[in-house]
């Protein structure tokens, strides 16, 4: 009798497990992708180039992708953000320009905590890679200040779905705060000639954390469905402060973002052969 009960329980478990898998298959995990353009103000100070604040404008293009991952039964999601930022700023006397170009990529994994049906809190870790430079149009032998950072940080998102006159909106607040990593940190008075022509690259990489760097991004968006499209409007505030080897840098930007969002299911690889789930024009 015991053997029979054990056999039934085992089979029940297997059925439940397979049913769960089928359930996973039936509810495919979709990808939320947004591409936004941003315009706003930029304030840059890099004492390797000048002791003064340079103010001007900045433009950026940002692509973000978010998807729940298979591990943890949908409790985890992955987010990737690629951002390209260009800035043009002028010194206080308005007779010199700094041009900046930066590209940064972040990969975050969040644990998802729902609060009711309309609010989700996502909290997790992120890795962030940033590279770029500031170019000063007047400085002869020190015209460039390069920036390369790789960080680990905390990332947090609050998603809030609401309706305004039966119109569904989704609000999102996101913040990213790096807490440690490595960055390019040239010694106080070293020239790029000495570093890159003569090869003196010792001591140009330093550990960074809150003692010498503070960076945070605040990102606020609202998704507005309009017919077959979803419009995303937002505000992105990026703050970056560093102080190493008596070289102070700050980069502050405020960007107003506009773009579109699409939610789609990735069916690449073997999944694309499952013709019962998709009416493909190709496969």
């Amino acid at each position, binding site marked *: 009798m015991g053997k029979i009960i054990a056999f039934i329980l085992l089979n029940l478990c297997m059925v439940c497990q397979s049913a769960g898998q089928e359930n996973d298959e039936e509810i495919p995990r979709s990808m939320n992708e947004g591409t936004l353009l941003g315009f706003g103000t930029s304030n840059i100070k890099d004492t390797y180039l000048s002791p003064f604040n340079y103010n001007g404008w900045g433009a950026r293009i940002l692509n973000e992708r978010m998807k729940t991952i298979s591990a943890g039964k949908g409790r985890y999601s992955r987010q990737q953000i690629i951002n390209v930022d260009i800035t043009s700023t002028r010194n206080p006397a308005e007779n010199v320009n700094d041009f900046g170009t930066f590209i940064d990529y972040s990969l975050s994994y969040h644990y998802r905590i729902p609060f009711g049906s309309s609010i989700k809190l996502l909290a997790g870790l992120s890795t962030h890679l940033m590279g770029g430079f500031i170019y000063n149009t007047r400085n002869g032998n020190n015209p460039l200040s390069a920036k390369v950072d790789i960080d680990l940080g905390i990332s947090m998102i609050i998603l809030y779905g609401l309706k305004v006159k039966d119109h569904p909106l989704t609000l999102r607040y996101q913040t990213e705060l790096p807490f440690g990593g490595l960055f390019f940190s040239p010694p106080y008075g070293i020239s790029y000639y000495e570093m890159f022509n003569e090869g003196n690259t010792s001591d140009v990489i330093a550990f960074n954390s809150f003692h010498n760097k503070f960076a945070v991004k605040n990102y606020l968006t609202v998704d507005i469905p309009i017919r077959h499209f979803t419009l995303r409007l937002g505000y992105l*505030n990026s703050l970056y402060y560093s102080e190493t080897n008596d070289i102070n840098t*700050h980069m502050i930007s405020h960007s107003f973002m506009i773009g579109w969002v699409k939610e789609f299911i990735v069916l690449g690889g073997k999944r694309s052969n499952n013709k019962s789930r998709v009416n493909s024009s190709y496969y």
Partner: protein
Amino acid sequence: MTRYIAYIMCPALLCLYLTGCDFEDEYNVSPRRNFESLWKIIDENYCFFEYKNVNWDNIYSRYSPEIEEQMSDYDLFRIMSDMLDELQDGHVNLLSSNVGISSYDGWLNGYPSNFNTEVLRNTYWSRSQNYNDIVKHNRIVDNQIGYIYYGSFKESILEKDLDNIFSTFSYCKGIIIDVRDNGGGSITNSDRLASRFLNEKTLCGYIRHKTGKGHDDFSDPYPIYLTPSHGYLWLKPVIVITNRKCYSATNNFVSKMKVLPSVTILGGRTGGGSGFPFTSELPNGWSIRFSTSPILDVDKQHTEFGIEPDIEVDLTDEDIKENKDTLIEEAVRILLN
């Protein structure tokens, strides 16, 4: 939940508020503010205080009382320029769009020019090929000597063009590299030429940089090597002709060439200018350039005040009258013997 959101957003908004307030360095035309700023930039960055035995605090005490809030830009510029001249450095320049450029040229005083363009045009450059406005090359003395005049290292010569120039010298007994009145330019350009005269990687000097704002805060000397070009190499005798106006990158070129075994430096003492310069600015928008990284010779000695030639030769009036350049004639005599 609203309370949680507030807890989370408050630090972020506080950061936004705090960082948004950092606008203390604004446009300022106050003579006092600009004078103080200039003095501080030099104090924290200039690299030859100790070598030149300059007491920058004393200099502040001397010039500061001359600053008045109602003074004109011209007067302020003049006082600042006079203060900077105390550094005796041609790499220290103040630049104002409405007043001009200050440039110390006291290092030229007491030295003969040793350079007469009329004689050169009449006798040595008349058949030369002009690579551009400031680089000329030619074979002289019945094609026995190759001659290159390089008037500024701001101009570059392409590697393939250097190959062509050196290949025309292949049957010559020696080469003269004339860099008189070459006030410098890019070390990349001067190194490109120097790399033709050696066949193995050679230690040619050292460089140091400031590691902090103190006058003595310097890194250890970092070796500078010259590596041979992949193009045409010239290992037969070379004479580099110099005068006092060989400055900055040209001084660096002479310092490196002096190390090479087949090279002789002939003419007058070079001008120096061995500090690698940086640029910064004042609150009124004026630009300030100054030496920050001393480049030392192979014996770790400064060349800020110039390099003595191996053979000192001055241009004589008698030779000028005969349309002869004493320095070139002496170089030819040495190379043919």
